[in-house]
Every structure is written in structure tokens, then in C-alpha cells.
């Protein structure tokens, strides 16, 4: 059984990003791609305990980011005319 962390080789297997909780640089696409990568790594069973926990923490932060994006495009259609938008932005 694997109880120790295996060092991951850069470029071969995805490890937790250096700042696992900082997902602000992600777009929805890169976030979902990273989540899929994390789940593939976890499914492989090769991640040690420390790496697993780091990946889960990073994945949850990314899920929250994606959920916010989905909420923004799913809370209800808002139709504006261009001049209304300009007025709102200027106001």
C-alpha cells in the first residue's frame, strides 16, 4: 500500500500546482481541463497521501471557480440594448 508520497516527475505526471489554492488565473476551459487531469491522476492510484490531498484541494477550488462561471450564465437571460449597457457602465 502506498502511504508515502511519490515525487512526481515534471512533464510526465501532473502533480499539484505550486499554489494549489490559487486558481484565479484559470478560465473555465483551463479549469475544467485541469480538473479532468487531476481526476485522471487520482484515478491512477499513483498519487501519495500528501499529493492526493493537495490535488483534491486544488480541484475543489477549480470546481468552485467553474460553478461561479456556470452560475453567471445560468441565473437568467438579461437582455440589454447597447446604449443601456453604456449608460449602466457610465453610471
Amino acid at each position: 500500500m502506498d502511504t508515502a508520497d511519490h515525487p512526481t516527475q515534471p512533464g510526465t505526471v501532473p502533480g499539484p500546482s505550486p499554489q494549489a489554492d490559487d486558481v484565479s488565473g484559470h478560465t473555465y476551459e483551463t479549469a475544467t481541463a485541469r480538473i479532468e487531469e487531476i481526476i485522471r491522476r487520482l484515478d491512477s492510484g499513483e498519487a501519495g497521501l500528501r499529493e492526493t490531498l493537495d490535488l483534491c484541494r486544488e480541484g475543489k477550488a477549480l470546481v468552485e471557480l467553474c460553478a461561479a462561471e456556470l452560475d453567471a450564465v445560468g441565473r437568467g437571460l438579461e437582455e440589454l440594448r447597447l446604449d443601456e449597457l453604456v449608460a449602466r457602465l457610465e453610471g
Partner: protein
Amino acid sequence: MAADPAPVPAGIPGSALPGPWPVGAYAAKLRAELRKRARLQLFGEAWNLRFTPVRVWFELRDADGALPCAMWREDAERCGVRPGALADGARVVVGGGPDYYPGSRTASPAFSFHVTELRVAGEGDLLAQLARLRRVLDADGLLAPQKALPRPALPRAIGVVCAETGKARDDILAGLARRGWAGRLVWAFAPVQDRHAAPRITRALQDLAATGAVDVIIVARGGGSLADLLCFCDETLCRTVAMLPVPVIASVGHHTDRTLLDDVAAVSCSTPTHAAEAAVTRHVGESRAALRAAAASLDRHARRAIVDRAHALARLSGAPGRYVRRERERLHQRLRELRAAARRRAGDERTHVRRAATVLARKAQAARTARAAEGAALRRRAEALHRAPGEAARDRRRRLEALAAALTAHDPQRTLERGYALVEDAAGRPVTSAAAARAAGSVALRFADGRAAACVRPDPDATEP
């Protein structure tokens, strides 16, 4: 059943014009007058070619004017005009004359130039101009920048440039609804057909991009001929779109028409519905479900990472006790086996010793018996030895006497005693031939009572054997 003719109405009071006359009569008269006009040849660009089972319709255009044209289908086919044979804008020469369909109460009238002959003269000027402009835009590198812009799969805000009325608007809403998208939609309405359209569309695009509040812009117009879509081939509009920092999705006309906007835009779609789907590439509901599944998977992994390891540690912590128990049982088993083996060994040894003692006893008895037999034999031999010397001496004496008698029989002395003599040389060796006697010269004669010397004389009569 013929309807009663309506009474002729009174004319317009104060009008100096004659009449009123029935319109049908006037329409028939107009057709007759038009048909009297000279038949001739015209040239221009053929646009909006449409085929029906019996007629072929198109418009003949140039920069200064246009004329609706009609042909009988069989005339068209005789001239090589078949569906797909003529692209919009093709340069043609037509022969014919003006005609007029007077219509009726249930049919619309129509004016047309009745074409009986047609020759294709080449690609139209307009298409050639568009091709040249497309090459210029390409050479300036303006066909690529939009395509290099990143497009979000789920844009939060979408700008739309289209006509305020028309089907394109509804189609875009339907396409967005099909994706489950319900974000912010910013409408920038503009005319999409006539000479004012291109500047207004250009301005709308610039304004939308300037707000910085939209992630993607759709430019949409319903179907139409390429002539109707010429505003989307405007050079200024195309150069503006090419340099816009927001990706533009073009949906202008149908897939058979390709404007220059389609070339410079990030994406070109055949319908506004497709444009909406290209703007939102993921289905929001499906994405939400996938995200839920991903979140559940992450939770499961996080839980299992700890619980599985806890179970493993618990298993490991019980292992030493299990190992000691197992070793103790193994040692006890060994002990039992050793004891059993020792018992077996002792029994075997006892049996072996007993068997050896029996063998030794038997051997001792045999030795005693042998010793007794040997004693008896010795005694018998002693007795025999004790008796043996007398008999043996007698036997030897008898054998000696026999030998002495035999020797005596062969003794030469006995022969000498009977009167014979033995001739010997000086060394006492017998001389057994006359030649030896002559050679020796002197010999001794041995008689029974002693020796006598003799000399051998040569005998003249004697002959050598």
C-alpha cells in the same frame, strides 16, 4: 357561374384625365404595347437565379440599373442555363424584349424582360472586385488575427449586431436557449442591407468592443442574395473586424454565400442559430452535471485517501500480535513433533539394543561350542601325535630299505664286482669311447677293488669309426 359585372364607378371629381377604365383592360393593353417594343440584346450581371418547373427568373444588373428577367425553362436549357450553372454575378448577354403579366384579382402582376436567348460572358465585375479585395485583405494579414483570439466556451456576455426586426434575432435566442445559456445579451441593432448598413454595423462593433463588457460578438443576418449581403463585404467593416480585440462570429446569409466578413471573422456560420451555438460551445446544463460529477469524484478521492490508509494502518497495527501468535503455534507444533520423534527414536533404540544382545548371546554360545569342538580336536591331535612316532619310524625305515635296495641295484660297484672295469681319465671322469681313450693317452682302469693306470697305444689296425 358568371358574376354580374360591377357597375362602372364615377370618376374623380375635377380630374381632367379620361376614364375610369377597368384595370384588366388597361393591363392587357399595356402588355400589348410592351410587346410591340423592339427586341434587342442587353448585357449585365445575372443575380438571384431561380428555377421553377416551367420558368427561370433572374435579375440583370449593372452599376446604373437592373431589370427583372424571365425565360421559359426549355429556352434556358437550350442556352445551357441549368440549376447551378450560373453563379450570382455571372456576366451574361441576353436577347429578348419587355413583357408584362397582367395578373388578375387572384394573381399579382409582374413586369419582366422576356429572354429567349442567353450567353454566359464571364465572371461578373462585382465578384471580381470581391476576389481582388479578398486577396488584398489576405496580403495585409487580416484574415488571421480574429482566428487567433481566445474564445471562452461559456461567455458571460454576448454582443449581437443584427436587424431589430427579423428572424435572425429569434434564431439567436433559440440557439442560446438550446445551449441552456442565460447570461447577459447586449443587442446592437443596425440595418443589415443598403448603403447605410456597413458604416452602422462597423460603428456598432466598435462600440460593443469598446465597452469591454462582452466576451464575443455575433453579426447576424438572415438569408439573402449576395447582392443583398454586399454591405458585409465593405472594406472598412472588414478591416475593423480584423483588428477588433473581441472575437466576432459571422452569420450572414446562407452557406452558399460567402462574404468578406466571413473570411475575416473568427468563425463563420451558416445560420444565426449555429452562430449562437458557436458562441457558447458547451451546454450549460451538461457542464453543470459534469462539474457535479467531478466534485463528487474529488470528494470520494479525498475521503478514500484517508479512510483507506486508516484501514491499512489498523491492519498493520494488528500484524505483530498475529505474527507472535502464529510463531507460538508453530513452536508448539515443533515441540510436539520433537517429542513424538524422541519417543519413536527411543523405542527404535531399545529394539535395536535388544536385537544386538540376542545376536551377541547367540554368537557367545556359538563361540563356546566352537571352543569345545576345538579342544576335542586338539585332544585328538595330541593323542594322535602321541601315537605317531613309532609307526612313522617304521614306515620310514621300510621306505629307506626299499630305496637302498634300489640304489644297490644300480650301483656301478656292483657291476665292477661282477668283473667289469671303468675307464677314467686323469681327473676321474669316465672315458666312454676309444677315441677319447686315444686322445687321453693315459687312463686309469677302475676295478672293484681299486684303480690301475694304463697307457693307450696306438693300434695300426684300428679304424676310425
